[in-house]
């Protein structure tokens, strides 16, 4: 055979193979990926707290920590992301390693703070540390800080830790939280008409805190979400996956299309469409980059609204935790002391920002940068629109009692956050996160209770609590959603099925701690109008009372307001029993 003949036959073979395999792969004769339906998440409620400080007790300014390493105490390593919620931790330590005169050294610890932005690296380091401690118990223990709502997904490391003979353990103390810096940025019209987000795409780092904000906003507005990042559903909110939160912002800044298959009702149509990022869920400096380099997006919702979503949660291994009860208490005490300082004294906060700059090690970001975005600033974006950037909060001891529900009549806010987002992630991504570790397996509040008993009767700086003016209406609504909470016919008492819905609603509202809640009661058109007016008011009031009775701390006076509409605003025809059932509803509006 001649060379030319070989080439011709070779080309024919290649073409036949290519088209053959292509046909086979796309025909569904080989196993296909399981089809993903878009999901309507039940509303995601979060606790809310903080705002106007009742600070009547001012903690006197303590001497600031020195700069020379103390070089004594139990060695511990703390891995952190470059996250402003850690200001109290920075001041407590005085530098990348505990310094002379720092509260950390005073409590017998030699803490080394290391920056680590990569979550899977943190997981690997925890496993490595567990193995090291097994062989040499004197090795420095490792603590890592992650976002409170991201812990369920992070808990996937549990299987590996169990192979190493231990498990995850939470340090029952949080140094602070995100308060505005994590956000969903989108086109302005989303604010007035959330429905316009359907068929649009949000760029974000998937299965993480930033995405959780977007998911919660979709749930609170009753928008379906499409969990599959490789398909496009015109009737749901879609996600565009980025490898981190800055790349998510870059996706919008560049605005390049990506090709996807279109699905309708979970069925693959085979049509390829180009999608671009219409909105971004990110955190500082992702928001700063968007504003400076392209603009055009406003804050739709942020952790200022969902103010309890993202506490900074520290996890370590049970192996280290059980062997070092004294160190755990020392760590918590050091953070508590520094927390009060950072919260009440600008000098202490500025110092904490300088220490942050040293630890995070970005040459172009001095202490002033971290300080500015800790406080949050309003800046004009490229198009002259004003956007709010950054925003974090440091916690003191009382804030922690609040977070973990040890204050009077308190709700364990963190437990609500953890369960809420664990359920969401595992519902959306059953393949990747079939289950997550129950919080009770990792959280032991004994050390916090011990400290609480120690401080009993002493004056402790108070926690920040949110004040709601009772006569203040919601001016800017963040979300609106109808809940068909089942009442007994013609009465304002709940059916057993309603209790389940109410618990869900409760958790959702606990996460959104800083937002006011308006409960709008509606009825169908059975019976006379004035009676219906009264009935709808009674039902909305019943919801309000139920919430307030369950938690006074999450629902202080003035947070929940009641509106009655009777049968005047039907959402469906009253001609059918089905439509009537839709009209007997309670609408929950969140806003500030």
């Amino acid at each position, binding site marked *: 055979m001649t060379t030319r003949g*070989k080439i011709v036959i*070779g080309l024919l073979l290649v073409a036949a193979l290519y088209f053959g395999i292509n046909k086979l792969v796309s025909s569904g004769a080989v196993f*296909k*990926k*399981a089809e993903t339906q878009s999901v309507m998440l039940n509303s995601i409620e979060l606790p809310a707290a903080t705002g106007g400080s009742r600070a009547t007790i001012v903690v006197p300014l303590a001497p600031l920590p020195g700069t020379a390493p103390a070089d004594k105490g139990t060695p511990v390593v703390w891995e952190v992301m470059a996250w402003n919620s850690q200001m109290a931790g920075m001041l407590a330590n005085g530098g990348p390693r505990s310094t002379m005169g720092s509260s950390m050294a005073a409590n017998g610890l030699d803490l080394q703070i290391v920056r680590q932005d990569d979550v899977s690296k943190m997981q690997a380091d925890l496993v490595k540390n567990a193995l090291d401690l097994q062989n040499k118990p004197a090795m420095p223990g490792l603590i890592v800080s992650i976002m409170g709502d991201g812990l369920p997904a992070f808990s996937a490391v549990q299987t590996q830790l169990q192979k190493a003979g231990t498990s995850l353990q939470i340090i029952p103390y949080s140094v602070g939280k995100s308060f505005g810096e994590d956000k969903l940025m989108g086109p302005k019209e989303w604010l007035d008409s959330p429905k316009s987000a359907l068929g649009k795409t949000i760029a974000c780092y998937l299965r993480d805190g930033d995405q959780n904000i977007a998911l919660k906003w979709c749930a609170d507005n009753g928008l379906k979400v499409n969990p599959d990042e490789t398909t496009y559903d015109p009737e749901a909110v879609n996600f565009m996956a980025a490898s981190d939160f800055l790349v998510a912002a870059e996706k919008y800044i560049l605005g*390049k*299309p*990506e*090709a996807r298959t279109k699905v309708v009702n979970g069925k693959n149509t085979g049509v390829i469409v180009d999608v671009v990022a219409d909105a971004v869920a990110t955190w500082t400096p992702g928001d700063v980059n968007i504003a400076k380099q392209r603009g055009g997006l406003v804050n739709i919702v942020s952790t200022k609204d969902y103010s309890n979503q993202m506490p900074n949660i520290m996890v370590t291994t049970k192996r280290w935790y059980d062997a070092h009860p004294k160190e755990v208490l020392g760590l918590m005490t050091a953070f508590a002391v520094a927390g009060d300082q950072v919260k009440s004294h600008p000098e202490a906060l500025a110092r904490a920002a300088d220490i942050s700059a040293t630890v995070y090690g970005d040459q172009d970001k001095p202490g002033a940068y971290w300080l500015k975005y800790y406080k949050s600033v309003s800046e004009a974006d490229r198009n002259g629109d004003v956007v709010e950037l950054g925003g974090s909060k440091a916690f003191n001891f009382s804030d922690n009692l609040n977070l973990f529900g040890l204050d009077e009549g308190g709700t364990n806010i963190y437990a609500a956050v953890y369960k809420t987002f664990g359920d969401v992630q595992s519902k959306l991504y059953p393949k*990747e996160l079939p289950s997550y570790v129950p919080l009770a397996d990792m959280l032991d509040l004994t050390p916090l209770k011990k400290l609480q008993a120690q401080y009993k009767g002493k004056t402790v700086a108070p926690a920040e609590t949110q004040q709601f003016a009772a006569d203040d209406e919601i001016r800017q609504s963040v979300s609106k959603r109808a809940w068909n909470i089942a009442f007994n016919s013609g009465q304002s008492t709940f059916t057993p099925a309603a209790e389940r819905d109410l618990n869900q609603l409760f958790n959702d509202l606990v996460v959104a701690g800083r937002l006011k809640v308006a409960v709008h009661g509606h009825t169908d058109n059975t019976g006379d109008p004035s009676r219906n007016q009264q009935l709808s008011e009674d039902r909305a009031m019943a919801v309000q009372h139920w919430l307030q009775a369950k938690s006074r701390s999450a629902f202080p006076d003035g947070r929940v307001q009641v509106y009655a509409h009777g049968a005047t605003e039907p959402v469906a025809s009253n001609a059918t029993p089905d439509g009537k059932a839709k009209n007997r509803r309670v609408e929950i509006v969140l806003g500030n």
Partner: protein
Amino acid sequence: MKTLFAPNAQPHRLVFTTMVVAQVALLLLIWLFYPMQLFPSLGEVVRSLGDLITTQGLIQELWASMTTALQALAVATLLALGISYLTALPFFRPIAYAASKMRYLTLTGLTFFMALMMSSGHQVKLSVLIFGATVYLVTGMTSVILTTTQEEMDHARTLGMGEWRSFWEVVVLGKLDEMLEVVRQNFAIIWTMITLVETLYQSEGGIGLLLYKQNRYLHLDGVLAIQLVILATGAVQDYVFVLLRRVFFPYSALTTAK
């Protein structure tokens, strides 16, 4: 048996095959009966492979990545052949030199500029792969061209060929088989980069994205299963290249030691 441990021996095909099968079986048995603390067991990996194939579309993702890789390889090969053959003309030598030195560049940050120049995510993916593969191919191909001996050139000239014709016969046609070898060796570069580019643009899926997701949730059994699939794919690819060489360049192995 003796031939297995004698230098330069040529054992019977059957003996050799049996030996390879035994070695692999031994490895699997060790894995099966001596599980390590954090390393997934063989059973777990097999189970996870089954799950990936039946419910997560591993086959489709592999094919998607494969077509992307082949597209990139085709373009990169043509580019690299052009650049290396042009080194015959002094004017183009700096280009080849620069291209081969670009092996040392890391892609971090460069992807942003590529995204600015291209119009869609798929094109960026391709251009990153093409860039990565081309610089390695040029390096290999120019060094193949440099193996041209004075004797070979003189031989062509004696036959009365002009400079262009000699170059065509000796360098272009005469070295094609070795060029194919360079392509085979460097195809692996594309596979190592595919995970990176598939996580940059995740809308199109791909086996790299599947691997990334398994790794994020520390499903180490899944990670290992996918890595093994990639390994097997690579082995098959190499075999196909050997086959191609045999079909198209039946005489190229004449000088190899037996």
